[in-house]
């Protein structure tokens, strides 16, 4: 039921997009033909059904077994191809107008994911981690971040981005943030402590720290690199925008907590959907990242007492996969296959990531519990090519929504292609 109601809202974005197409034209203009609208509606409906079906556990496991791919980001590659096909002028389902009109859906989806990641920020679980874990994970993440970022910045300059324009730095940070996160081993998220029983699993908590660090990076990005294509009446420094992000997230988190208290069933579902829509809408309104604002709201929700956590978690999980697949479809629609710069960036991304993890491994060695665990499962070489997290694609989407950057298609190529390459290289490393 949660998936259904959530899908209704996800479909809303599609309806809005189609409705924009069908909006009455000013007098004197030719009426839009019916067939393209029909085609777009049916095409988007098929995409939604496929995303829904692919997220079904049985179908997902069958797909991953058949493709020999173990991670969600690689099993979502089919949707990238679907998006590419849907964008083709001959098909015409995801043209520029429709993509723009899907923006509310993207806002909502980013907010939903932010809430999920926020639910990982359970202070009680994090408190039980061994001392220094956060520092270790931070260092482990920072090294590939810096290497990927530096490589990305250098290549952006080579591609002709002006060196005195901070946007190439911003794009490099987006690429670095996307590359610095590694996916969890099995793709399963850490449920809130209350749902894990008496002994919460610290493994899951450590593996989620990457994403939390990435969200922090995204918050800084959204605060200090404001979009250049809009003007604000109030010229506020970056720190103020950062505090605003925190403040909005905090207020919304408390509001949602008050709204959800004592609710059940369809009311709970409706309120959760409305809350995420409101939060992502306010964030989008202010050109803040919906992912960051909803992360803070999610962190508030998971740390406050109440019976809401179990229901929240169940509903949130039901929509996670379809959202990722829809992101892949949109990423595919944004992808410029013929743009050589993305293909140049791809191997640089993979290699710089490997170098970053190699340095981290050498520096931290067996102090890093996570690296050690990964090595014990798949061999030390596989630690050079950890799988890329699905949150990475969400970060790319977030950047697209905020900045509408020409570099995004290159980053899409690098991240998607890098995910496939990382998995293939990782498997080869573990089998030798």
């Amino acid at each position: 039921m949660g998936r259904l109601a959530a899908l209704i809202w996800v479909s809303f974005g599609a309806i809005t997009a189609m409705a924009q197409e069908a909006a009455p034209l000013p007098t004197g203009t030719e009426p839009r033909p019916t067939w393209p609208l029909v085609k777009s509606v049916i095409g988007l409906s098929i995409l939604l059904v496929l995303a829904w079906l692919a997220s079904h556990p049985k179908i997902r496991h069958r797909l991953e077994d058949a493709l020999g791919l173990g991670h969600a980001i690689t099993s979502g590659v089919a949707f990238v191809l679907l998006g590419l096909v849907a964008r083709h002028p001959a098909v015409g389902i995801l043209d520029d107008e429709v993509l723009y009109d899907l923006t509310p859906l993207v806002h909502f989806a980013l907010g939903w994911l932010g809430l999920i990641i926020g639910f990982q920020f359970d202070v009680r679980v994090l408190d039980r981690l061994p001392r220094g874990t956060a520092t270790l994970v931070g260092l482990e993440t920072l090294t590939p971040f810096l290497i990927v970022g530096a490589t990305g910045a250098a290549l952006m300059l080579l591609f002709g981005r002006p060196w005195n324009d901070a946007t190439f730095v911003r794009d490099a940070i987006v690429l670095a943030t996307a590359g610095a996160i590694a996916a969890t081993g099995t793709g399963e998220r850490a449920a809130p402590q209350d749902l894990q029983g008496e002994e919460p699993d610290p493994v899951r908590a450590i593996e989620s720290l990457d994403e939390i660090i990435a969200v922090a990076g995204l918050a800084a990005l959204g605060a200090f690199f404001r979009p250049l294509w809009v003007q604000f009446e109030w010229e506020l420094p970056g720190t103020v925008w950062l505090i605003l992000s925190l403040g909005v997230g905090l207020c919304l988190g408390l509001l949602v907590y008050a709204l959800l208290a004592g609710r059940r069933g369809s009311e709970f579902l409706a309120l959760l959907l409305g809350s995420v829509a409101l939060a992502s809408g306010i964030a989008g309104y202010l050109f803040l990242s919906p992912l960051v604002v909803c992360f803070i709201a999610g962190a508030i929700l998971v740390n406050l007492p109440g019976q809401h956590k179990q229901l929240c978690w169940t509903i949130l999980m039901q929509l996670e996969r379809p959202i990722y697949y829809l992101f892949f479809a949109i990423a595919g629609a944004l992808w410029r296959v013929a743009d050589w710069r993305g293909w140049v960036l791809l191997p640089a991304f993979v290699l710089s990531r490997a170098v970053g993890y190699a340095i981290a491994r050498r520096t931290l060695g067996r102090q890093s519990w996570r690296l050690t665990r990964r090595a014990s499962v798949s061999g030390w070489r596989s630690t050079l090519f950890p799988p890329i997290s699905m949150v990475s694609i969400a970060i790319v989407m977030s950047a697209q929504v905020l900045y509408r950057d020409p570099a995004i298609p290159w980053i899409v190529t690098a991240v998607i292609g890098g995910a496939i390459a990382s998995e293939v290289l990782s498997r080869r490393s573990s089998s030798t």
Partner: protein
Amino acid sequence: MKNLIILLALGSLVHTAQILLPIGGDVHGAAGTALAFGLLLLVAFVSGDMLARLRLPKLVGYILAGIAIGPHALGLVSENMIVQLDLIEGVAICLIALTAGGELDLKLMRPLLPTIMALTFWGVIGTGLLLGLGLFLASPRLGFLQSLEGPTLFAFCGMLGVVLSAQSPAVVMALLSETRAEGPVSRTILGTVVIADLVVIVLFSGASAVVRSMMTGEGDPAGTALTIAWELFGSMGSGVAIGILLAYYLRKIRQDASLFVVLLCIIVAEITTRVQLDPLIVMLSAGLVIANFGEPDSSTVVHDLQVASLPLYLVFFAVAGTTLHLDLLFEFGAVAAMLVVLRAFGFRVGGAIATRQARSPIEVRRWAWTGLLPQAGLALALALVVQRSFGDAGRGASALLLGVIALNELIMPVVLRNALVKSGEAMTRSSVVPVSRLPAPRHSGEQP
């Protein structure tokens, strides 16, 4: 108290966001859509909750929420946002119509059919004529009618009478669901508003064609008849086809049936209007097929949709509230109030005649007519058609119609709810959907 604080907090947050907006406002509008959806949903929910504590229909709370935060009051939701959200109406109407059709079990309705037909004739058609006559007699006081005279004026007033006699299956369904009412009164009300809606659509199409022809001197009776026939029978035929498809799916596949239904509603909502079909009639017919020719438990799927559709319904009625022009009540207050009373009187008298003629049970005689009182979507849509199609007279008439509809939309759900309670049918239907149908969360490490 908690609800009030939540409302204040929501309003303050959005107001603050508006102050910090970029120059030019939400220049591209994309984020505003999500914000408006979320804000309307939450404010409507909380308002409905507050009114429920006062034993008033939640529906009125949803509408009041829309009025309060809409562009005519606090302005937290702009007209642009409403235009985009207005389109959710299509899907909501399809779901409502499907659910309404799914409730119409012909075996149970058969004994009530004479009452339903009589109510439609005496109550709806009779009241429409009465209202038309009332407007004709009041025309010297209505400035927008001064340009019309004689037969044209009479026909125009008759057309407005048809619009004013329209009811609202959406409001009736919402109230029947909220009060969990079941019984002969509820079934009679639902059957009557569904059939009356069809009758009003046909009558309005014919009346507006006649008026247009009299005002412009041009007319195409054959074309008009064909258009009406296509809209009516084409919609019914399409609905039957969709109903058969749906029934087949429910019998053979069953899995994720709700998903299939929702996608169907999306496609129907977007495509039917482009081919001059009525989505309400299409999905009503589909629901009828499912209820009467589908598997016995197919209707459960349709009932379940009501649960998942709560967000849509909340926003649907809140958006209806944002489009209410309460300012027009000041302009036409006295005449609008007179028409509201006249309409209620017409339904009361027409209902009495109809139920006496049909020899209906006593409870049906006393309360069934109240189901005809609420007005919403259909009447609004017809009022907008009048506004667009008949020049200055149409614009003036539309303002009056909107004022009457606003009053009926706010006051009449309360009357209907009271009637359902006093008839003894409220809270008689068992809760058809469990408290939560969500699966239990899986602990990490468990197999899916």
